[in-house]
């Protein structure tokens, strides 16, 4: 059971790793790319810290359950924000 944000972080981390491997001997990362990777790193760490929502929410479609699910995404954002910059 994952949230929208944790699922996106997982997919994007894989894509970023692929891209970095492909350009191992290529040009250095631009400042914008470095910032983007730092963001991704922080979001990954925050996702791990927050953990997965209860399995009972999987497939739930009532508004209360959806709100609880979305709250996990918000917690990831807040956790990432609260961490000291690297």
């Amino acid at each position, binding site marked *: 059971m994952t949230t929208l944000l944790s699922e*996106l972080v997982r997919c994007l981390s894989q894509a970023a790793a692929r891209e970095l491997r492909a350009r191992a001997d290529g040009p250095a990362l631009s400042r914008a790319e470095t910032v983007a990777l730092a963001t991704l790193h922080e979001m990954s760490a925050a996702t791990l810290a927050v953990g997965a929502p209860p399995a009972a929410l999987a497939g739930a479609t009532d*508004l209360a359950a959806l709100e609880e699910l979305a709250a996990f995404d*918000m917690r990831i954002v807040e956790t990432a924000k609260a961490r000291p910059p690297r």
Partner: protein
Amino acid sequence: MSARPPEPVAQAIEILARRHDAVPADAILDYELLSGGNSHITWRLLTGDPARDLVVKIAQPDGPLAPYDVKHEAAMMAQAEAAGVPAPALVGVHHEGDVQFILMRRVEGDSPSLWEVREWLKDRPDTDRIDIGHSLLSTLPRLALASRGPRTQQAIYTDYLGDLVAKVEEAADGVLALPPTIRVVHDWLVSRLPSMEAPTVLCHGDFRLGNAVFDGGDIAALLDWERAMEGHPLHDLGFLCLPGMKIGDHICGVLTQQELADAWLDLTGTPLDLRAAAYFRILAIFGELCLMVRAMARLAQGRGRLTGVRPLPLIGRLHHDLVRAVRSFENDDFTL
């Protein structure tokens, strides 16, 4: 020009020099990146005379909002002008294969982003803040359509919502598991469409402070018409009320909800329908969430640049804001 500009700009400048009389080959002395959006990149072309400078918006062929249709944007700008809402003067549109750009005159004035608005208003009387919000809102009642298409508003919004979901589902297919929120809120929005008896108007589609250029307290131009469409008179007002664009109690950094309602009454002679406004606010959150998730899904497929990762926290907020807004609406709480 000291160095060759980045490839898309060089290509655009070469085409402009060859094909558009308005831009002689030696007229462009330099260039400056204005913004790199999801669907296009915008550059200012400097001529040495700021009043003659141009702006070129170059479509990203594989951008997350593709297909970005320059002809559509140009047509919408023309409609806005015809309705009496200022838009940048169009110089030309180029659309050949993957090379698409729109060329316009640069509009002089202030265009503060949401993050700059406090600083921008800091040393001005509080009445200026309300005047700015009033000016921005005053464009909406003017956006009447000279001629409207055959579709009903019900059909327009049913198609619009279906298209948003179809595109996000297509982008996510085989890449990520979408949360049930997308489908549930889509169905909710279709089931709660407000009364569509209001006249169909031209909607800007990305109606926010950063897309307005001010000359003093007046609107000099509304920019970025790529998402313009026919729709409900409160469509743009709902977008303006996106939770992420609220600073404290101030919608889009300028007006409280009461001030917004007062301005609407003043401008239209009718009280603001809070329920409908709240509906279009939810529709705006939903639209933004779908667009951003679509952008991220394309990025995860290797279609795009790593730099696009930065909006990730915004997606978390949009997901949360969306469900909360629907719950509030269901509880008859129409806070904007």
